[in-house]
């Protein structure tokens, strides 16, 4: 396998991890906004408790992805930065407001009113950011970003405001909300709270299904290359079949309250959706004008990058394992007693 294919695979892997961890994090914010019922406060507390120690780590996958893109495939990064300048800037504003508001809410000691205000900023940004992220992905896959030589010729709006891009945005939002709800069933310390998130997970699961069907239907017109990849390439077809199996399994496990396993199945489902996107547009980085090979950095650079990644993985992976081990959910009751720093 050539280095650019390996690096492309690693890049896709980074996006899978960002979708799983960063996605669940965004989803947490969505459920903060949509919290209701008699256990509204408990729902919010659980979300904040689960996110507190890990949210910053969860979002570094995005930075890793960006660095890999500009170091490994600089021309693709340049083209995307121009074509998607507007939604990426809006996404950044969402990320800034979300992270800042979450932290301010944790450390603002002025009482409930201030907490509610920061909470609203945090949760509203958590809805907007995944939508924009999905729209950017939709634009990349749709084939409407056109690059001639080194110049983007398709304008700054049309590519990410198409119906297909909107549908991908909604799919991302639903998927992240689904992931978060499934993960929270596992984190919840009481049966009632767990049921709250089980119902939310089932609802979000249906929303994912509807959005996925919409994306598929719109792909024929809106993303012909992906449609072709979806319907022709046997590898992509197999991936999509596996995604379907994972989705049905996750749903069934949630229905029968096997939360530990449901978490795994949901993670598989989300990961396979991202890989499915990557596989159906392979070998294009930006459909239809920029390929992995065309945008690739020199082989020497790519090899060094892979070495740096290996060294990085040796540092980061054990550390992350430790982090998640330290903050794994505790048996009933004990999780709510500890205080933050």
């Amino acid at each position, binding site marked *: 396998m050539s280095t650019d294919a390996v690096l492309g695979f690693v890049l896709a892997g980074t996006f899978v991890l960002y979708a799983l961890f960063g996605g669940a994090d965004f989803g947490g914010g969505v459920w903060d906004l949509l919290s209701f019922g008699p256990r509204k406060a408990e729902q919010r507390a659980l979300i904040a408790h689960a996110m507190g120690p890990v949210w*910053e780590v969860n979002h570094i996958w995005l*930075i890793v992805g960006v660095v890999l893109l500009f170091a490994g495939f600089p021309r693709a990064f340049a083209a995307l*930065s121009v074509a998607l300048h507007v939604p990426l800037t809006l996404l950044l504003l969402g*990320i800034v407001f979300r992270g800042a508001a979450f932290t*301010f809410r944790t450390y603002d000691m002025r009482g409930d009113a201030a907490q509610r205000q920061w909470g609203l900023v945090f949760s509203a940004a958590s809805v907007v950011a995944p939508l924009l992220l999905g729209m950017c992905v939709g634009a990349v896959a749709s084939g409407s970003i056109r690059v001639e030589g080194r110049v983007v010729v398709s304008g700054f709006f049309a590519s990410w405001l198409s119906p297909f891009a909107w549908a991908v945005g909604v799919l991302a939002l639903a998927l992240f909300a689904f992931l978060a709800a499934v993960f929270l069933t596992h984190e919840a310390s009481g049966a009632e709270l767990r049921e709250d998130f089980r119902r939310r997970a089932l609802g979000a699961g249906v929303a994912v299904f509807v959005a996925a069907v919409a994306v598929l239907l719109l792909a024929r017109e809106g993303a012909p290359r992906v449609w072709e990849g979806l319907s022709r390439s046997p590898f992509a077809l197999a991936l999509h079949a596996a995604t379907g199996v994972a989705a049905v399994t996750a749903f069934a496990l949630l229905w029968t309250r096997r939360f530990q396993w449901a978490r795994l199945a949901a993670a598989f489902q989300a990961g396979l959706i991202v890989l499915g996107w990557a596989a159906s547009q392979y070998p294009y980085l930006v459909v239809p004008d920029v390929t992995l090979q065309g945008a690739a950095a020199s082989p020497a650079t790519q090899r060094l990058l892979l070495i740096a990644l290996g060294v990085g993985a040796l540092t980061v992976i054990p550390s992350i394992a430790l982090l998640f081990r330290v903050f794994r959910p505790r048996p009933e009751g004990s999780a709510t007693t500890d205080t933050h720093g």
Partner: protein
Amino acid sequence: MFMTDLLYARAQMGLSLAFHIVFAAAGVALPVLMVLSDWKARRTGDSDYRKLSQKLAKGTAILFAVGAVSGTVLSFELGLLWPEFMGQYGEVIGLPFSLEGVAFFTEAIFLGIYLYGRERVSPGLHLFSGVMVAVSGAASAFFVTLVNVFMNDPSGFVATPHGPTDIEPLKAMFSPGWLTQTSHVLLSCYQASAFAMAGIHASVLLRHPGSAFHRKALSVALPLACVTALLQPVVGDLSAKHVAKAQPVKLAAMEGQFETERGAPLRLGGLPDVETGTVSHALDIPNGLSILAFGDPNAEVKGLNEFPRDTWPPVAKVHVAFQVMVGTGSAMALLALVTLAYRWRRKAWPSGRKMMWAWLVSGPLGLVALEAGWLVTEWGRQPWIVRGVMRTADAVTPVPHLAAPFWTFTVVYVFLGVVVVALLKRQVADTLPDREPKGPDVKGGEAHVH
């Protein structure tokens, strides 16, 4: 004032970096101070140090979070504002950026454990996490500064009209001057944070001279502040000597040296005028510049006249920023000397009103010097984004109406800055003697803290 999109792009990048740099510096240095107090608390069993390390941890949490999100913005802005720079040179500087990512990742992971894990992990692992935060914070600043070193003094590739070829990423990563510039930057992070912390506690001590907590806090900040303030002029001098050799046009702008001259004077202060080629209102020290830059009173210093007019940096801005950096740096070094002399003779850190006023006034100087120094290196590199190879004007995005994102980020960052200051103020207010819960615990009087 009419501004082109290029100017708006530069203004947005400048704003984002100026904002981020404060939080980045805090993210590098506060963990060290936090771990030091934590370690002191363990060694002495003193609850004040424990409380201090918890307060510092909260401060770190707030500042690191804003640093993390503003850093995310920057990693995208490299492309959003300078796509041609990243499209051509992204691969040349990808290696330090990737390693910076790894370091930043490690910092965030262990900060999570340190902040939220106090009750969940063993004391040893907790302290280890704090040390990891401090080490990886420094590593991340080190790697990201290497990128700036490359932009100032690029190496490790062959430039062609279509971009770089024959790329050697390792050579590019350690471009000439890397050791002095990274040392200079790292020291400035520690110095700026330690001075800010000392300033905060000095201001409380002026109003509440009896507060043992704030006296101890000051005793944690002062050693770091004094040591860095004395080391920085030495490292800064080495850095300037490198600039004199490798980037003579930047040195000429920094010093307002319009004509090539043997035995060039050092011009303190003043305002350069590019039309007349003179520096007005400066205090000249004969042969000073030749001595400082080349260690020889008669050494020749190249003037701006040696270089084409369209490759001059904005001379007045660079000179003034440089004077501000050197001036504040000298003031801090002087205060450090006085403080250390006091510490040496009286065997205690100073506590009198005059010295507290001096530290209060000097509190912001570290940050002022940090921003000024960064302006010197960025303005001093203009009109290039990669010196001698790519002009800033050729790297800018074709996206129009850049005024919109610039003003949006300005408003957002001003708002965030105000909120952070308010939050930190409340964290400090929470430790004031009249706010502390009245209890049977002994208020440890005017103990001398060593």
